[in-house]
C-alpha cells in the first residue's frame, strides 16, 4: 500500500507543476520552459522572506505567495508582454533564456549549497501514519491537499468565473476575444501570475519536504512529460498525465530497474507525440496552430 501512497504523492507533485505549463499554454500558446526555475524561485523567496522579513513560518509562507504573484506578473509585464505578436518560437526561446538567467541569479544570490528550508522555518516534517502500512511526510500530505485545492480552484475559476471564461476565450481565439473587448494583456498576465503561483506552491512544498538547491529546477523538466502526455491545453489532462508518469516511475523503481524510471517517462512522451501529438486530452486543432 505504501507504493500507492508514493504514486499519489508523486502524481500530486507532477500535476501541480504541470498545471503551470498548462495555464500559460492554454491561454497564450507559449510553452514556458522556465517553469522549473520559477518553481524553485518560489522556494528561495520563502528562504529570503524567513531570513530577512519574518521568522513566523505562516507569515513567511503568506508573504512568499504574494511575492510569487508579483514575480509572475513581472515576468509577463517586463518580458513576455514584449513577445506578443512575435513568433511562438521566439517566446519559447525567451523562456529558455529566462530559465538560464534565473538559475544563475539564484546561485549568485543564495549560493550553490543545499538549504534545509524546513529547519530554517522550524517546520517539523514529521512522518504521518495514515494506516498501518502507509506513512507519508507532513509536507507530502500538504502537497496532495494543495494539489487538490489548486485543481479544484482552477477548474472552478476557468469554468465558472467571468475572468476564467475570458481566459479560455482568449486561448481559443485571441482575435475574436480581443474584438469582443477582452484585454488580452490582462488575461495573459493573469495566466502567468497563476502559473507562477501554483509553481511556487510546488517549489515551497518540495523544499520543505526534501531541502532546496538550484538543481531542483529539473523537477520542472520531469513534470513536462506529464503536461504533454495529458495534453498541453487540458488541465484535467495534466492531472491524468501526471498519474500515468508517476505510476510508471514508481512501478519501474519497485519492480524493474530504478534507472529506467528516469528514461521511460520520456519514452512515453515520444510515443504519445508520435501517436497522438496533441496528448490524451489536448485539442487537436489547437496543436496544429502551433
Amino acid at each position, binding site marked *: 500500500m505504501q*507504493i500507492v501512497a508514493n504514486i499519489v504523492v508523486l502524481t500530486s507533485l507532477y500535476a501541480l507543476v504541470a498545471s503551470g505549463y498548462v495555464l500559460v499554454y492554454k491561454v497564450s500558446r507559449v510553452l514556458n520552459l522556465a517553469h522549473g526555475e520559477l518553481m524553485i524561485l518560489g522556494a528561495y523567496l520563502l528562504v529570503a522572506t524567513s531570513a530577512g522579513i519574518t521568522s513566523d513560518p505562516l507569515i513567511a509562507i503568506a508573504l512568499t505567495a504574494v511575492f510569487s504573484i508579483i514575480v509572475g506578473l513581472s515576468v509577463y509585464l517586463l518580458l513576455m508582454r514584449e513577445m506578443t505578436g512575435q513568433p511562438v518560437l521566439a517566446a519559447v526561446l525567451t523562456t529558455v533564456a529566462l530559465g538560464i538567467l534565473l538559475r544563475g541569479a539564484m546561485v549568485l544570490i543564495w549560493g550553490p*549549497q*543545499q538549504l*534545509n528550508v524546513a529547519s530554517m522555518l522550524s517546520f517539523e516534517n514529521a512522518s504521518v501514519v495514515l494506516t498501518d502500512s502507509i506513512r507519508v511526510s507532513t509536507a507530502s500530505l500538504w502537497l496532495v491537499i494543495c494539489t487538490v485545492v489548486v485543481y479544484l480552484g482552477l477548474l472552478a475559476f476557468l469554468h465558472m468565473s467571468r475572468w476564467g471564461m475570458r481566459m479560455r476565450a482568449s486561448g481559443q481565439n485571441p482575435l475574436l476575444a480581443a474584438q469582443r473587448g477582452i484585454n488580452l494583456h490582462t488575461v495573459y498576465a493573469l495566466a502567468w501570475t497563476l502559473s507562477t503561483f501554483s509553481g511556487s506552491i510546488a517549489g515551497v512544498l518540495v523544499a520543505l*519536504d*526534501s*531541502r532546496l538547491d538550484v538543481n531542483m529546477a529539473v523537477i520542472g523538466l520531469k513534470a513536462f512529460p506529464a503536461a504533454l502526455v495529458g495534453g498541453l491545453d487540458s488541465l484535467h489532462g495534466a492531472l491524468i498525465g501526471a498519474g500515468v508518469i508517476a505510476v510508471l516511475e514508481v512501478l519501474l523503481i519497485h519492480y524493474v530497474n*530504478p*534507472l529506467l*524510471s528516469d528514461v521511460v517517462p520520456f519514452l512515453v512522451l515520444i510515443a504519445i507525440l508520435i501517436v497522438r501529438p496533441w496528448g490524451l486530452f489536448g485539442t487537436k486543432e489547437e496543436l496544429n496552430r502551433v
Partner: protein
Amino acid sequence: MKIRHLAKAFTLAATVAAGPVLAADDEVVIGLSAALSGGAAGTYAAPAEGLKLYIDRLNEAGGINGKTVSLVIYDDQGDASRAASNGKRFLTQDDVQLIISVSTSATFAPLISQATRQGVPILFAGSVCPAETMPPAEPLLYCSTGFSSVHDSIAMVDYLRELDGDATVGFAAMGIPISRAGMEEAERIVLGADMKSAGVEIAPPGTADYTPFATKLIQNGAEAVLAWSPWSVQIRFFDALRKQGWEGNAFVGHLAEAELEMMEIKDPGLYTVGSNAMIFEDSKATQDLVAAVTESGVDLHPEAIVDGWLGGIVIEEVLGKLGDDTSAEAINAVMSDIEIDTRGLRGGSIKWTENNHFRETIYYRVYRWSDETGAMEIARDWKAYEVE
C-alpha cells in the same frame, strides 16, 4: 540577499579575465579547475575556496622558500567540456607547473589526458580520488582528498559489523559510476561476510522524490542503510527513509556538507564515516583553521573547507621540498616520494610512493549526533586501513 556571492563571482570573473599568467622566476604557477558553480558546487566550491585561502595566507607570509604561488582558478561547473577547456588554457596559456582538481569525476578524463601528455602532475584535492592514483598508480596523478567511494565503503561495512553484525543492509547509490562502484563493492563485502543484503537502490540524477527508492529498501527488510554519493543524494535518501518511519541506522560518506547538516538534523541514527576531522572537536588543528577563516573575513564555513585546506598543506609541503628547479618534472619527482603531515586534520600522514599516490594507510573516524550530550560526538576514533 547574499551579496557576497556576487562579490565571489566578480572575483572569479576577474581571475578568469586577467588573461594568461606567465611564471616569473620567483613564483610557481598552479592551475585550479573547480566546480565553483553548477549542480555540484554545493560540494566542491567551499573546498576550492579553502584551498585558495590557504595559498593566499602562504603568499602573505612570504611564500615558500622565497617563492610565491600564483593560483590560476577556472570554473569547470563539474562539466567535462569545460574542464577540457580549462586544461588547455592551463597548459597552453598559463604554463602551469601543477594542476589541482576540485570537481566531479566527470571532469577527470579530459584533464588527465591533457596534463599527462604535457608531463604536468595533477593533484586531486577535494575531488574524489580516481582509481589511477591507487596502486599501481599512474605517474602524474596524486590525491589528497579525504573521501574515496571504495575505501569509505570498506570502512562503513567494517564499522557496521562492529555495531550490528546481524543487520540486513540496504545500499543507496546515485546513478553515477563512482557512487555505484562504492555501493556495489560494499554489498559484495557484506555478502562475503555472511551478512544479508536488502539490495542496492540506484537513484538517477535529478530524481524528484526519493521515497519510492526508500520504500523498496524498507520492504526488502533493510535494518541499516549505507549510502555513498553526493551529499544531497545521501541525505535525501535518509530523509525519505525517516519519513516512512524507518528507525534503523544509516551510514553515509563524510563530505564537505556533513558536519553542518548533522548539527541541523540532530539524528543519532545518522553516522558519517570519513577521514577528515570535524571542526566541533576544537583541536589545535581545527582551531587554526577556524582562526584563519575568521581572520580572512571570507564568508566560509570552516566545516566545509577541510579538504581544500589539506590540499593547501600538501602544496606547502611539496613546494617546501623543491630546490631551485620548480618545473613540473621536479614537482612530480617530489610528489612521488613524500610523507605529508596532516597536522591533526586526519588520523595520520599522507604518504605517497612511486607505486601509491593515494596513501599507504587511510584512517577513518565515525561521527554522529548524541542526544545525551546534545552535541556531535566521535562514535569511533581513528582506525587505520592499509591500502592494497
